[in-house]
């Protein structure tokens, strides 16, 4: 199963706007996603935006990326504008519905 467009977008932005190479950018985003209990194959644009704002900033700061907070705010804003592809039904969606 492929990574979502939102994940690829955030990684691409990091690669283009920081000194991180492709591998490091994707690895850093995956670490932030894991901290949030999310997966690169199912993360929606909104989820990616929240992870970028709340978790990625610290990861980038730890890697010595300057002005990480401002960069993340800009990437999150762009990520929110992405159209989320129709993703397969997640356990969250099923268990939310089952509660009535």
């Amino acid at each position, binding site marked *: 199963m492929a990574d979502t467009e939102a994940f690829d977008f955030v990684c691409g932005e990091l690669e283009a706007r920081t000194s991180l190479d492709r591998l490091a950018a994707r690895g850093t985003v995956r670490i932030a996603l894991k901290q949030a209990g999310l997966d690169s194959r199912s993360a929606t644009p909104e989820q990616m935006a929240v992870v970028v704002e709340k978790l990625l900033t610290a990861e980038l700061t730890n890697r010595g990326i300057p002005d990480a907070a401002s960069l993340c705010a800009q990437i999150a804003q762009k990520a929110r504008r992405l159209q989320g592809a129709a993703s397969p039904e997640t356990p969250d969606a099923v268990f*939310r519905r089952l509660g009535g």
Partner: protein
Amino acid sequence: MVDALLLLSTVAFIVAGGVVGWRLLALARRTRQLTDFIIGFMLFDLSAIAYPLIVWAGVGGLPLERARWVGIVGSFAATVGWAGVYVFTVRVFRPRVAWARALATGGIAMLAYGFVAGAQFNLRTSDPAALTSTANPVYWLQAAAILAYGWTALEGLRCFLQARRRLAIGLADALVVNRFLLWAWIGVFALICIAPSFVIGLRGGDYVHHTGARLATALSGFAFAIATQLAFLPPPAYRRWVNGGARASA
């Protein structure tokens, strides 16, 4: 004392599972979602059809011929219900994952073997005690059910741990997170309902009259009923408590 507890627990198990299963079937009619139908059918079938029939066949004091057929119908209902546990687990927690499909297929094959071999055994035997003896290959059914409940409990726990992290950053609903945990407990309690009698039976013991097994079944039956109710028909006070706890820790 244990008899009374077991009777109350049996009633609680049947009523809670039956009511919640029925309610989820009604939900499935509205949503047209196969997953909703599977869990609703599975809960209703196992709690309100299979379990009462199996108990009736085992300890109902029925004549052999009737006990044999009640047992076969109950085993069939259990086979279908437990197959539903496998299908639900793979569809919801591990869709498109090869090992999960293989595990579910293997589990359902065990169930089918247990049912067919158990039914043939029940039709052949002339000894009422043999219906619940270790010689009865219906034990394959119980083994497959233990595997299904253990697996779905682990998946529920995994999702709970992941969702708890999302809750901390505002990406999850506290009730849904709690429902994953309750689902894991439902799996554990259902497993405990079966496992002691399975182990005692495999060791050649008389599980029908074993006090420890009966007590474990009674207590886990109560716990199953409570967890099922809280997960899928939570009272407003419980909803407030879960949401309040999430807000307090935010």
